[in-house]
């Protein structure tokens, strides 16, 4: 039987028991080849993401460009997945066990992913706001010579920036949002540089009481590796694609401010290590998970590389403006140091300027792609359903 030839490499060497493999014809052979290719590509792509060098800032883990690559890969995997699933020779397969159960579960996951996409799109609006504030900081510190006025200006923007990043991360802030409005009389506040309070706007919410962490947790429901004979059929790519989808959504939520992320690190991926393609994903999950745990202790807005950098530089520059105001002047060495940090911040802003909109567009593309595949799958199910005798 031809199946034995594929046993060695097929889907990360899941053993197929011969007697469980049914209908071994030429088409099936082709299908096995497609499946193998699919998991091979998945494996390669995520290995590339895992091996992203940390020291090259442009491609660092969870940087904007890294996320864009992640989404690119998602789109590629998704296209191949659809090919494997839908171009198959026997469309009725999707309505037979185990797919009759797995496909609806997959579709359910897809819908949840769509809401995550929207939450992340909203989150990117916040990141845009950070960028605006950071640009003010840069433009204040760029002025030569740097004096008290410019230092104050930078400090004001920095305070707004830090508090914005902080508020976006405070999960309770959603409740505050509705009550808040601009206060009419702000005079008489003692501080010279008053900072407007920040808030999570209503439009940044997916829905009331919605939680990104819970959503992703729910996506992992029923997500178990196919066992036994199921492992040889289309159950495998459905499982693989599900894991990819959950992982991508999880990584986006970890990187970008999102509504309710409590408990994100507790999400467990049911991806067994012995599956070849899953190894890199597991590696990435562990790596990002570690970062997230650190974040939970420190309280940062998100793991987006550019944002972390912004936060770090913000803190340094904040110290600088503080000491400036305290001493009235600064040493040349300090001024040089500040100028260097400011230049770094400018570079980060530039990368955001270049990358945020394309990232947003790409997330939208992912959104539309998921919708499209869902529609196609539903139509296929519908067609299969119609060809069977009607209930009436």
């Amino acid at each position, binding site marked *: 039987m031809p199946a034995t030839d594929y046993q060695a490499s097929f889907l990360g060497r899941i053993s197929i028991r011969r007697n469980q493999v049914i209908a071994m014809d030429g088409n099936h052979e082709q299908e096995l080849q497609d499946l193998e290719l699919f998991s091979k590509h998945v494996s390669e792509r995520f290995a590339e993401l895992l091996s992203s060098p940390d020291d090259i800032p442009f491609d660092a883990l969870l940087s904007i460009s890294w996320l864009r690559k992640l989404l690119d890969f998602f789109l590629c995997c998704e296209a191949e997945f659809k090919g494997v699933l839908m171009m198959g020779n026997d469309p009725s397969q999707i309505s037979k066990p185990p797919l009759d159960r797995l496909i609806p579960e997959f579709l359910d996951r897809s819908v949840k992913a769509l809401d995550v996409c929207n939450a992340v799109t909203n989150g990117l609006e916040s990141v845009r706001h950070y960028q605006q504030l950071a640009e*003010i900081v840069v433009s204040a510190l760029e002025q030569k*010579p740097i004096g008290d006025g410019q230092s104050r200006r930078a400090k004001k923007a920095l305070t707004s920036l830090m508090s914005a990043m902080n508020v976006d991360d405070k999960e309770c802030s959603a409740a505050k949002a509705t009550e808040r409005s601009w206060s009419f009389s702000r005079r008489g506040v003692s501080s010279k540089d008053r900072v407007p309070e920040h808030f999570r706007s209503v439009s940044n919410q997916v829905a*009331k009481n919605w939680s990104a962490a819970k959503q992703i947790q729910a996506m992992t429901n029923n997500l178990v590796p196919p066992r036994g004979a199921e492992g040889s059929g289309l159950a495998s790519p459905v499982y693989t694609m599900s894991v990819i989808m959950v992982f991508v959504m999880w990584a986006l939520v970890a990187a970008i401010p999102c509504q309710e992320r409590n408990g994100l690190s507790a999400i467990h991926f049911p991806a067994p290590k012995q599956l070849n393609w899953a190894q890199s994903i597991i590696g990435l999950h562990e790596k990002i998970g570690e970062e997230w745990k650190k974040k939970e202790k420190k309280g940062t807005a998100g793991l987006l590389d550019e944002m972390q950098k912004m936060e770090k530089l913000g803190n340094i520059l904040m110290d600088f403006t503080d000491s400036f105001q305290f001493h009235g002047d600064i040493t040349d060495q300090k001024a040089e140091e500040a100028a260097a940090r400011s230049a770094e911040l400018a570079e980060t802003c530039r990368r955001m300027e270049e990358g945020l909109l394309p990232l947003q567009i790409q997330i939208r593309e992912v959104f539309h792609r998921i919708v499209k595949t869902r529609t196609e799958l539903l139509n296929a199910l519908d067609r299969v359903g119609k060809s069977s005798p009607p209930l009436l």
Partner: protein
Amino acid sequence: MDGCQSGVPTYEGDLHVVAAAHHIVKALGATKNLSDDLRKILIDLDSHLSMITSNIDSKGGRGLVDVEERLDQAERKIMRWETDPMMIWDSGPKEASDYLEAVDETGKLVDGLRGLSVHENRKQKEILHRAMNILQMAMSRLEEELIHILVRHGQQFEPKHMYSRSIRKDIVYDESFISVEDEPIKETSSRNYSNDESGECIVDLVHADVIPDIKSIAKVMFTSNYGPEFCEALISVQKEALEQYFSFLGTENLSIEDVLKMEWTCLSSKMNKWTWSMKIIVRVYLASEKQLCDQVLGGLGSVSSYCFLEISKATILCLLNFGEAVAMGPHRPEKLLRLLDMYETLACLLRDIDTLFSEEAGSFIQLQFHELLERLGESAIAAFEAFRVAISSNGSLYPFAGGGVHPLNKYVMNYIRMFPEYCNTLNLLLKNQHPGVADQVTEPDYGLDASLLTSCPMAYHLRSITSCLESNLHKKSQLYKDEALQHIFLMNNIHYLVQKVKGSELRLFFGDEWIRKHNAMFQQHAMNYERATWSSVVSFLKDDNPGSSSMSKSTFKERCKGFSVAFEEVYKTQTSWSIPDPELREDLRISTSLKVVLAYRTFLGRNLAYTDDKCVKHTVEHVENSLLDLFEGSSRSLRNSRRW
């Protein structure tokens, strides 16, 4: 600026050159049609030149002192407000313009001082720092004043002129297809709004009186390089105002999951609200917001459209997401009209959207609109198909009691009566559904040429829907065991179909030919009914021997009895049948009467000799009156009623 440094003149002769240059710059600056960039350059040059003058003076010791005096003066004006609890722009126009003047002066001094070689002169550097510090304070204050003005003079507008949306339609068509067994349909007026009703209308989101104030703040902040702060404040306040308005409209954020799970009645009202909010938000609110941005930031290049995009993006995406969620939901037939509403709304807003978001950064939003439009179109087509499928597959296990108009028929006909309102959209969407029809369609111009309407794609689909309906009704008629009742049922239902078509704009799409054909159809069923019911009854009254004078008494008795029994049986059964349309009922009674009463009268007349006999159970009048009880939908019996 380095050029200026090296170019600082040191001797008398140059002073004249500088003075002349200054003069020219001032003259140029007075020119009206300058681009804003050029104007800015001239202003910069102006302050450089005046600074050079004072710098040259400073060799004589006067210049810096002058500068310092000017700064002191400006500082006093600016600092005065730092301790004042009042807002400047609330205190009066004089205060505001004084303040602006002081800020402007400080800005000029900063620009001028910065243009000079600051490292050489310690005193000069000190003054520059002081000036920048004052400027920062002033800018911070201006930002606060700006926020205050925007909030205080922000105006909410009532969308009252748009409240006239088709509320009655909601009540009727919120019924889901599943509930056709009920009696959901009331007669309704057609929808009472057209798509361009809301029209272009721009309101003042911020009171028009304060626009010049905001503009003056913008001008001085941008001149002093504080543009980002201005934008940040403007965006924050206006974005929040838009969000508040959004929730004022009663629109709430819903996750896609929520929308997909939503019950039909709830979803329907949300879809309706979306259609309405979308129009107001885009046509009125965003158009007004765009105007505000342009008024305040016009002439500053892409700043205006940048701010506009940042203000509106989140809300727009939120609206779009609901649309996406609806479009991807299950394509149930009852969704069709709502989907068409959404589609039409979006289609007629596309031009507005393309104008509002014409800049490159906004093309993302534009694209999302176009994609959603496409998706809603697909979804509407799918719902249309689902409607057709639901009609064909609507099954019954039991015959519909009384043979009246079936609820499915009522639902379908009342539903499609709304279609002509959506004629252009449906034609557009359905054009490619059946290739054969597409060719016949040139630009469909609804309402112009009646003969063209019957051949448009919608007409084709309408007829195909009613033929699905007819064949389903035929199937349903087979459930009756009584052939006569089958005919009553079909007569009733086809009559209803024709009435609905004739009584609405549907007739233009179905055409006279269709109506004629279907008129003939229900009439045929009426005749079939008469034959099925009455032929056997009347056969008792027939004269077997037309030549002979009369029949024997026993035959008469037997015939009389047979007729009575058969008539009573018919009476008992058919009083429970129903013909809801009074005219149709009347017509059928008359023609039955003509047939039966006439035959009975002749029968009795011919056998006058026996008529006093007890065997004549029913008088002619009685038979005639009894026929009036038929088809009233409540069973009666002649046997128990009266005795003669």
